[in-house]
């Protein structure tokens, strides 16, 4: 119990620091683990290695299981083709880049292969958690990322299984892959038929649901063990089996609290086991991290945009996938256990994994995506039609409502100009023959290129209120009326003071709802009164 209390103390410190200095919690948990080990060594106290090892195993099983439960193929409806293209491209390109880099750095072919595979898959744990925290699972890029993760997890599992058995010969290796596929097919069958049937037919309370879900985890892990496959393979498939709606929703709350507990203990334990590799390996780690970041960000964003996503979504996808996976750790462990790679290489892969997981929340911030968007080539063709415009409507930000607004103004016979910073959106507008300007809508130069001050109306749909403030400031004194979409009461006051017209979205929606409520939910005697 004392060991557990110490681990929880380390976790409490990490979480507190995370909130205080607004840093992601996972690297702080690992640092806490390192701190626990250093303090134990300094104090001459033996670490509870057995407890730590068991927390790593149990924690990893629960976490991978919980992540698997979020990988529902239903989320990918209508997007299968782009997902397959992006997933396969990233996997192959990164794998190749990893192998080539490793070869250039002097590693043998087998080691290079391990390094390539370790680099090529992204972390389901980190990414799913990130999307959940930022509530972006439903966004187009969120769905793309989840689909890519699902496929990559399948790829890496099969490769890992093949590598694990490769010393025993090609036939055994192939048979092991077939066994893994068989386990996956069983999970798919449960996902499609058994779990939905169970949900419809049997009423389970919270405790029964939780036990049932965990039974699935242990049953699949047990089957993987009996089939001589890594247990994490079973854990992921078990989670996948439960990812169908509504089961995944019903278990999410329970899994959330278990995941929270084991997340803390797992990363603390990993940190406690972490050993820094030597200087040469440190340099090599940095090189691999750079390769991973460059290849992923550049190539994945190009491929994602090519399959039809907006520039912003493509960049966000690429950035979010820029880390190695917990399966990379397991792959490395497998290699060490079979003698195919050295323990030092495991440390290097662990360092790459820890570092890239740590970097993910930083590089997936909005300002990074915006900065990268500025590197995208600009399309100017759409600006030509703006030269002669006046008394028109300017849309700052196309977004989801842009198409409808464009149609509406067209029906009113009012010409429009669209301003958007997303190159893919501009490209589509040019194809449709709509005058457009690529650039930041809050930039006065961009507004002038769209002849904003000569327009009759400017509709500002930008996300941040300070961008809208910049627009209003530039538009002061012009005859154009500026409508600004607002979400908070303070924003309404700001817009009105600056001379704009706030579009109170939430207020409008609440009003419409209350009208419906009055008509449909009020009691009949209230109505007559």
């Amino acid at each position, binding site marked *: *119990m*004392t060991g557990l*209390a110490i681990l*929880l*103390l380390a976790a*409490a410190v990490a*979480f507190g620091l995370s909130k205080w200095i607004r840093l992601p919690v996972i690297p702080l948990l690992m640092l806490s683990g390192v701190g626990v080990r250093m303090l134990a060594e300094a104090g001459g106290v033996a670490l509870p290695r*057995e407890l730590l*090892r*068991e927390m790593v*195993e149990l924690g990893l099983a629960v976490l991978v299981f919980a992540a698997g439960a979020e990988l529902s193929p239903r989320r990918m409806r209508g997007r299968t083709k782009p997902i397959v293209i992006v997933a396969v491209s990233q996997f192959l390109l990164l794998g190749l880049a990893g192998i080539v880099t490793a070869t250039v750095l002097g590693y043998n072919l087998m080691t290079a292969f391990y390094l390539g595979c370790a680099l090529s898959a992204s972390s389901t744990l980190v990414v799913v958690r990130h999307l959940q925290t930022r*509530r972006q*699972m439903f966004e187009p890029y969120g*769905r793309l990322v989840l689909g890519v993760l699902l496929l990559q997890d399948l790829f890496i599992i099969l490769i890992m299984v093949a590598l694990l058995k490769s010393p025993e010969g090609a036939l055994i290796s192939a048979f092991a892959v077939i066994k893994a596929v068989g386990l996956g097919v069983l999970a798919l069958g449960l996902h499609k038929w058994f779990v939905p049937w169970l949900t419809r037919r049997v009423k389970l*309370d*919270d*405790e*029964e649901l*939780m*036990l049932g879900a*965990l*039974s699935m985890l*242990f*049953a699949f*892990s047990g089957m993987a*063990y009996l089939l001589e496959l890594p*247990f994490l393979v079973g854990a992921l498939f078990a989670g996948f089996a439960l990812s169908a*709606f*509504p089961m995944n*929703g*019903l278990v*999410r*709350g329970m899994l*959330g*609290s*278990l995941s*929270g*507990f084991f997340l803390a203990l797992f990363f603390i334990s990993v940190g406690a086991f972490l050993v820094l590799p030597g200087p040469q390996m440190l340099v090599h780690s940095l090189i691999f991290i750079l390769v991973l970041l460059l290849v992923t960000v550049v190539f994945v964003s190009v491929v994602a945009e090519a399959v039809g996503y907006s520039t912003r979504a493509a960049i966000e996808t690429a950035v979010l996938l820029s880390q190695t996976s917990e399966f990379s750790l397991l792959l490395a462990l497998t290699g060490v*256990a079979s003698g195919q790679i050295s323990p030092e290489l495991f440390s290097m892969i662990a360092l790459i994994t820890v570092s890239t997981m740590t970097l993910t929340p930083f590089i997936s911030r909005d300002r990074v995506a915006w900065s990268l968007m500025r590197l995208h080539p600009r399309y100017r063709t759409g600006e030509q039609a703006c030269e002669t415009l006046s008394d028109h409507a300017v849309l700052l930000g196309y977004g*989801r*409502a842009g198409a*409808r*607004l464009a*149609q*509406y103004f067209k029906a*009113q016979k009012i010409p429009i100009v669209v301003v958007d910073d997303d190159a893919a959106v501009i490209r589509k507008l040019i194809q449709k023959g709509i005058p457009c300007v690529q650039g930041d809508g809050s930039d006065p130069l961009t507004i002038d290129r769209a002849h904003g001050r000569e327009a009759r109306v400017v509709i500002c749909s930008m996300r941040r209120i300070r961008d809208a403030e910049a627009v209003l400031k530039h538009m002061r004194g012009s005859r154009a009326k500026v*409508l600004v979409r607002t979400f908070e009461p303070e924003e309404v006051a700001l817009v009105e003071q600056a001379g704009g017209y706030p*579009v109170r979205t*939430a*207020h*409008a*929606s*609440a*009003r*419409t*709802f*209350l009208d*419906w409520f009055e008509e*449909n*939910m009020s009691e009949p005697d209230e109505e007559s009164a």
Partner: protein
Amino acid sequence: MQGSDYTLLLDLGFIVIGAAAFAFLGKLVRMPSIVAYIFAGIFLGPVLGLVEIGHSLELIAEVGIALLLFLVGLELSFAKIRDVGRVAVAAGVGQVVFTAAGGIVICLLLGFDLIASVFLAVALTFSSTVVVVKLLDQKGHLNRLYGRMAVGIFLVQDLIVILVLTLLAGLGHGDGLAFGTVALGLGKAFGGMALLLGIVLLASKYLLPRPFAWAARSPDTIFIWALFWCFLVAGLAGILDLSLEIGAFLAGIALAQLPYNDDLRRRLHPLMSFFIAVFFVTLGVQMDLSAARENALPAAVLSLFVIIGNPLIFMFIISRMNYSEWNSFQTSITVAQISEFSFIFAALGFSSGMITQDVLSIVAVVGIVTITVSAYMILYSDLLYRVCRRLRILRPFRAKQTPDDERITSRLGHVIVVGMNQLGVEIVQGLVRRGELVLAVDTDPAKLLGLDGAEVLIGNVEYESVVEEIGMREAKLVVSALQIEDTNHLLAYRCRKLGVPCSIHAFDVSVVDDLMDLETSYLLMPNVDGLVEQRDILEKEGLVGERPTSNMERPTLNIERPTLNRDGEEGGDRV
């Protein structure tokens, strides 16, 4: 991490799968889950020999106990404890004395020697905090008066157990029952209790409120901090030679005074359920039934004494303290089993050579029988009460017939609004102005401030316990202003199952079809409504052509909002 044989995972796997299988089978005969878990443990351990209890499993079981008592503490405030302090001490001490005395007499009559009789009587005396709390939690009655009384009584018993174990340790050290040893043991126990209580009270008032208020907006942080606090105080209790249960309970009490204790409790509940299931299975695994058949008669007699005698003793004491017959009965029913301490106590006696294997087996059999029977008694206590009243069994106790003053909150015909973003707040305010009973729910306590006229609750609607607490079944309408697809889908699904209309935020066109499949009555579509608002402003300001007259067709935005009307018929508003 190399060369792992995954022992813990394998053992846990057997335990979880066994628990699940027995729980599902037990559901067919309405067996309480605790009983199912114990039988699962007996099956996995004594019968099949698949599981052996190692250090890690013991740790997991202990964690379960700590979390269970921590949750109990979280439920109670100091005011609620003061309510039941008097009856807890009186009933707890009184029952120990009467049961021990009665138990010794019965054992002597059954032919046991004095030492064995004392051991058996002491083993029969204590009731199981863990079993009862789990069952009351399952019934949702932990917060009822009788639930609090029962918990108070068991915690008093826990203190007495510590004294007993101290005495036993003294006997084991060869000091015998020397006055000095006993006095020192007593002093340490009471002193330790007072010290721990003092630390917890001070922490509750001066140390915990501000950090937890700061962390409140980060559910993960507050969750981990609460766990750390629980194990810190439990660890302190261990250092002071007090039980883990007392430490965890006091840790919970310290946090019970904070406004987010309910949300914390709900978040911790699934974790506790997992660990406590492991505890009960391991209890079953450790049962030694080797000499059960030869000792069936004494085991049966002693079981009856516990199942019938303990409740009668309690009924007598509690009804004398002017509690209603119903509350007295409900509290008394909870003591009809022996405790896990009984097994520990008997095991200690056996290992020190003071009792034989036969006595140990009797304790095990009495344990299984009384836990099984009392679990049914507690879960079906209302039915049992009606039967006892009909048979006039309770008359001799002359308990008060009028109900005790107990406030039970229930809601009916209210509107639940989930998610206090600006949309949610506007809806709450609008509904309150219309005179509706509104319950606003959010996980962030800061967002629930300033909602005058509405009741508020901090909670995550993904948890079934929150769904029960908000009275979704009795609601007039459930509204979700959240922008979380999965939570919204789950809410709509639950509403459909309960037959309650719902209105869900369709923040993106990709979620509309799913929400309509789930029979959502009304889709909140701020994007659409914002467009309509924009159009209205454009028209009002004369920025778009002529204002439409009654003869003109108004230009549309060509959007349809699907709805279900009062009669559940599909329709649509075109804008």
